[in-house]
Structure formats: structure tokens, C-alpha cells
């Protein structure tokens, strides 16, 4: 009989002695080299964390491999970060370089600290979900390969936090990322009336549509979609399998930029759409990697020291960003939903 409600494993059992000893008494940190954090306690003790990129979707072999390394260099302690990187926790400074050599030899990717691109928060995509408009892991792999030089160095103007969501549910919480990659559908759902009749709760389905595009069709015991009102969010499909929305020819990726969640300097902000659509050119999404690289390089070339993507764009103005980025501006980028009004330029101040 399983024990119910016993909760997560106790974190205290997972902490290396150096952490137990310096718990809550860390004094400062340094980043001696990309991928390595040095935290110094009030006691003077130093803990080195070595950050290693992972594809997040890993086999148990991978986990066992990192365990072997952790046993050898970290007394068996390691952790994962909020961005799915592994951190090897080295208490013995003497083991730091050997560990780094080992990681290099085995082909691990050390980086992601300070002013770098870290791992991309992402989702399931074609690997495991039913609503994706694009794949998750594949796009991430393609983008991270392309930006690798910015992962294992710290030469960016500031941190770059990316997120990917394979549909508008945004499980990758991309909505507040420096650069967000979002899978988008672009055609209305196809109604399977059979399936609806077999037991979809029609009122809930109708209520699920943000724009009121779905209305009941009592005669058919089904629903009707007003295609002019549909903006392909897929929420109806989440509610009911009868509303299939994938469309290989038209699904793809939108790019939003300029979000952040930290409160450092500026308040957190949403990402804003700058490219409404890029095609789903699996397996390596060249249009997407290229578009992102272009934005990133523009930021590198133009940002002030320490300026996140959104801080930079807000400083120069979005209208200037579009000029510099040579990205076409279209009505698709203008908000027309509930909070659109706050995006309208109610000012005579702007750049040409």
C-alpha cells in the first residue's frame, strides 16, 4: 500500500555538508569563468557550482552518468536549475579543474552563467502533447546549437532568457522572456460533429472560446465556429478533441521579445510580438534560428552595458527597433484583444 500525501523528498537530505554549514550564510558570489559560480560563505568557505546544459528530455542513462560524475567530484551532490541545467556542487576547490576537464572530455556543455544565453525553458511539443503547433525540443536544439557561442561565454550585454511554448497554453511560460518562441496555429478548428455528439459538454465548449466564436447548433446537437472571429488559440481543442486544430501547412512559430521577470532596475514585462509567423521547417527551423540570431546580434551591437533586450528596445522605442531590425510591421502585430488600449500610442511622441 502506497503512503498517501507524504510530500516531496526532504531537501535537507540532499544538501552537501558545505551547504548545511553555510545555509543562509552566503556572503557573495563570483563567476570565475563561464559556467562556474563561486559562492563564498561568511565562514570563508567556498562552494563551486559548475553549470552544465542539458536537453531536459533525458534518459535515465544521462542521469546515471551525471551521478557518476557527482560521486567522483561532488561527494554525490548536485542540483538542477530553474532552467533545466545541471549544477555540480563542488566543495573541494581541488576538484574543480579536474571536474571541468572531465566534463570537457565527455562533451558536456559548461556555461549559462552571467551574461550568457542559458538553456531555453520549454515544453513537450510533438514528443508528448496533443495540441502543439510546433515541436519543442527540436526547435530548442536548433536554436541552442546556433547560439552556442553565447552559452559558453559571457559576452552579451546582459543575461538572455529564452522560452519556448509549443502552443498558446504557454507551458514554457514564454510570455515574459527576452526572446519567446511560440508555436501558433493559424486556421480555425475542424469540427468533428460525431465526437461532439458523443459527449462533449457543449456549454463549456462554447464558454471556452475567448472571442465568442463558437455557438451552439442545437439542430445538429453540435456547435458552429464563426471563422471570422476565431484567432486559433486552440482553447476549444483543449476542451474537446472534436475541435482538431493542427494544420501542417499553416502551423508555425511566432517570435516575441523584450519580456523579463526580474525586478532588477525595471519592473517585469511581457514579451511583445515582432514576427507573427515563421514556417515549421523541421528538422532545423533555419528561418527561426536566423531570425533569433539577427535580433540577438542587433541587441549586442546596440544595447548599453547591462541592458536586457526589453530595456534596450524600450529605450530606443519599438518603432526604432523595427527599423533597425528591418522587420516588416503589420496589423497582425497590433493588439486587438482586451488590453489593447494600453498598447496604442496615445502620445504625439515617437520616432520616424
Amino acid at each position, binding site marked *: 500500500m502506497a503512503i498517501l500525501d507524504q510530500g516531496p523528498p526532504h531537501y535537507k537530505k540532499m544538501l552537501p555538508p558545505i551547504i548545511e554549514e553555510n545555509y543562509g550564510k552566503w556572503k557573495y558570489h563570483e563567476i570565475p569563468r563561464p559556467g562556474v559560480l563561486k559562492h563564498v560563505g561568511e565562514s570563508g568557505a567556498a562552494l563551486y557550482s559548475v553549470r552544465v546544459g542539458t536537453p531536459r528530455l533525458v534518459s535515465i542513462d544521462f542521469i546515471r552518468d551525471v551521478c557518476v560524475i557527482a560521486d567522483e567530484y561532488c561527494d554525490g551532490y548536485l542540483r538542477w536549475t530553474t532552467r533545466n541545467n545541471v549544477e555540480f556542487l563542488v566543495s573541494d576547490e581541488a576538484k574543480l579543474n579536474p571536474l571541468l576537464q572531465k566534463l570537457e572530455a565527455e562533451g558536456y556543455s559548461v556555461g549559462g552563467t552571467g551574461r550568457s544565453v542559458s538553456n531555453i525553458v520549454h515544453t513537450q511539443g510533438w514528443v508528448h502533447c496533443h495540441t502543439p503547433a510546433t515541436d519543442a525540443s527540436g526547435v530548442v536544439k536548433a536554436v541552442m546549437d546556433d547560439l552556442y557561442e553565447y552559452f559558453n561565454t559571457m559576452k552579451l550585454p546582459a543575461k538572455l532568457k529564452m522560452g519556448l511554448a509549443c502552443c498558446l497554453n504557454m507551458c514554457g511560460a514564454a510570455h515574459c522572456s527576452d526572446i519567446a518562441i511560440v508555436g*501558433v496555429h493559424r486556421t480555425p478548428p475542424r469540427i468533428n460533429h460525431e465526437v461532439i455528439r458523443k459527449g462533449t459538454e457543449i456549454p463549456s465548449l462554447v464558454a471556452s472560446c475567448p472571442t465568442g466564436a463558437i455557438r451552439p447548433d442545437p439542430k445538429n446537437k453540435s456547435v458552429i465556429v464563426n471563422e471570422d472571429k476565431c484567432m486559433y488559440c486552440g482553447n476549444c481543442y483543449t476542451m474537446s478533441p472534436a475541435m482538431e486544430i493542427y494544420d501542417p501547412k499553416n502551423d508555425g512559430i511566432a517570435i516575441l521579445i523584450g519580456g523579463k521577470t526580474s525586478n532588477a532596475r525595471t519592473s517585469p514585462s511581457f514579451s511583445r510580438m515582432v514576427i507573427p509567423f515563421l514556417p515549421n521547417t523541421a528538422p532545423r527551423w533555419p528561418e527561426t534560428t536566423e531570425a533569433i540570431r539577427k535580433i540577438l546580434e542587433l541587441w549586442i551591437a546596440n544595447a548599453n552595458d547591462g541592458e536586457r533586450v526589453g530595456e534596450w528596445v524600450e529605450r530606443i522605442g*519599438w518603432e526604432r527597433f523595427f527599423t533597425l531590425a528591418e522587420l516588416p510591421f503589420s496589423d497582425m502585430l497590433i*493588439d486587438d484583444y482586451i488590453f489593447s488600449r494600453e498598447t496604442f500610442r496615445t502620445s504625439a511622441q515617437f520616432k*520616424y
Partner: protein
Amino acid sequence: MTEKNTPLLDELEKGKWPSFVTEIKRAAVKSEAAGELLQVLERSYKERRGHWKHGGIVGVRGYGGGVIGRYVDEPQTYPNVAEFHTVRLLQPSGWFYNTKTLRTVCDIWEKYGSGLTNMHGSTGDIILLGCKTEHIQPIFDEFSEAGFDLGGSGSCLRTPNCCVGPGRCEHACYDTLEACYNITNEFMDELHRPMWPYKSKIKFSGCANDCTSSIARSDCSVIGTWRDTLRIDQEAVKEYAAKMNIKAAVCDKCPTSCLTFNAETQELSVVGEDCTRCMHCINVMPKAIQPGKEKGATILIGGKSTIVQSAFMSWVIVPFMKMEAEDDFAEFKDLMRRIWEWWDEHGKSRERIGETIYRLGMTKFLNGIEVAPVPQMVFRPRANPYVFWNQDDLDRSGTALDGSKL
């Protein structure tokens, strides 16, 4: 005229600011209606409530508006203000007058009305406050004779107004006085014959100081600006430098930090492409800085006050438009016709155009008026990915399974 006590109102004759009570009393010397107004008002002050009823429909032949009907709630007690309607007269551009014209206004109004006016109404009209129904047509006839016309009321184009502009302001980027005059004349039918979902206002400001508050107070705000770079007179800069801290008062307050004062050379320089033409530096140093040479206006749409959907400020629809009397403001007029046509077709009753655009989306509006979207229209792009696609766009951007364009 019955002499009555007005102890509460009398309190408002004290103090240094000119008193409207004194003005009503002055009018009351000649007008019984004005005298009764005083009594109605004293009662309102005592009871802390108004005593006017909803206006019925009153007006003149040929027009659908221009007069606001007003009736007191106790006509027996106050027979002289039983009917107490307001006549709105179109003011001259910039509220410039010669005394002859003003005296004409006074004379005609003395003849038929209460002798009370608002100079001016909040929308801009000359407001003649309080007359009887039977006098409306004669009043209009005489004013018409004297070269005046009625202003707007109801679901129509309301009386446009404008700032003093080139008449007396060095900042004016287009001729606000002429624009207001010319465009008001162009849209006489729209102004005098209400036929839209609701009212629509235009205000003309010569520069971004927006001395008519057009961005808040009108559905269409025409705000002067320029396309090239502001002009700096370095000699004059040096004069200012002698008496003020240019860096603190000007450069540090420039919203785009595009001004630099070189303390050594005493010269001021601007990164022209970064300037958002906010007017601040020009305001502070008018002798030294002036707008660029290529002048025109930004057109913004949607401003209105609180009711129903909240107050809206106008937003940019055309970043830069030439506003020239030479071509009879053709581009502007053409745009306004398209805008009103779209609104007339899509707006609900009592829905200002800003609300219609908000309800239907800016995209539909821009398509409807055939204006191409530009980033200047928004502070920032959308945060949600709720994009509508049409078949054309899909055809252009879709991809066949072999990776080829559709």
C-alpha cells in the same frame, strides 16, 4: 423683476477671483430670466441639487442641432426660465475678435436672451445661455444675417476648435486657424445635421504642447509636428547658457536623452533621429531652438471622456501629414471622410469612434480606412499571440510538406 435674497450666492461675490454671481446679477438688471436664474440657483445652493429638466428637442429650420433645450422643473414658480435654452454659435478660429463683432453678439443676445453667455463653451462655441423657444429662430436669423452660424450638438461633428497657432505662437507647425476655419466649413453638413452613431470632435493644436488638449478632448486630434530635425541657433544657446543651467533644465529632461550641451564650446547638439519632438527643449529655449522646416501634423483618433468604456486618449493613426491650405487640406478631409464612413457603418448608437475601434480592433479599422499599419501607431506591439490571419496571408506564408512555399 422681483428682488429676492440670495444669501448663499452672495458669498460667492467675495474673494478676488471674478464672480459669476456678480455677472448674473448684472444681467438680471435687464433680464427677468437672469433674475429668476439667480433664484433657481440660490435654491440649488440651499437644496444642493439642480433644478433643470432634460432638454426637449428645440432648434431652427434646416439644422438638426445647435440649440440645447432646457426647462426648469417648476415652471409655475419660475415662469421666466420655464424655457431657458442654450444657443451655440461657431466661434472664430482661435477665439480672435474685434470689438465690433463682439458688440454684435451682445446686441442680438440682449434683444432676445438672458444676456448671459459662456465665453466660451468647453467645446469652443460662443454659448448664449438662456432663451425662450419662440426666440430661437429669430435669434438664429439675426445672427445669420450678422455672419454667424450655429455650432454642433447631437450626434454630429461638434464645433472644432484650435489653438492660437500662427496667429501668435512661434511653435505652430501648421496653420491651425486656417485649418479649423477651412475644415469646419467643409463639414457643414456633418456639423449641422446629426446623423452619426454619436458625437465626434476635432481639435487642432499647432504643436505637441497641445494647448487645446486635443488628445484628451477630441475624437480626432490634429497635433503639429515636423519630419526633419529641430533647428538650433548656437548664438542664442550661448545667451541662454549665461543665465541658466542648460544641461539640468533641458538636456536631462529630454525624454530620449538626445540633446548634449558641450560646456566647453557652449554648443548644443541633437541626435535628430532620436528626437520625439516633445517640445520640451523648444519650450525652455524658444530663442535658440525651433521646430524643423518640414512641418505638418500627427493625426490621432479616439479621444473622449469617461462614459461609457472609460476615458480614452487619441492614438496615432497618421504619424505625419502635410497640412497645407494650398491643397485645401485635401488629404486630411479625405481621411476624415473615410474614418467617419467606417464609424457610421460599424459604430453602435452612442458609441464614440474610439470605443468602436477598441471593440472591433485596430486592424479592422485600419483596413476599413485603408491606412497601412506602422509601428508609430502603438507604444509597443501586442503581448498576446491572438493574431487573425486571412487567406491571402496564409497563401503567402504557408509551407507545403516538402518545404516549398504554397
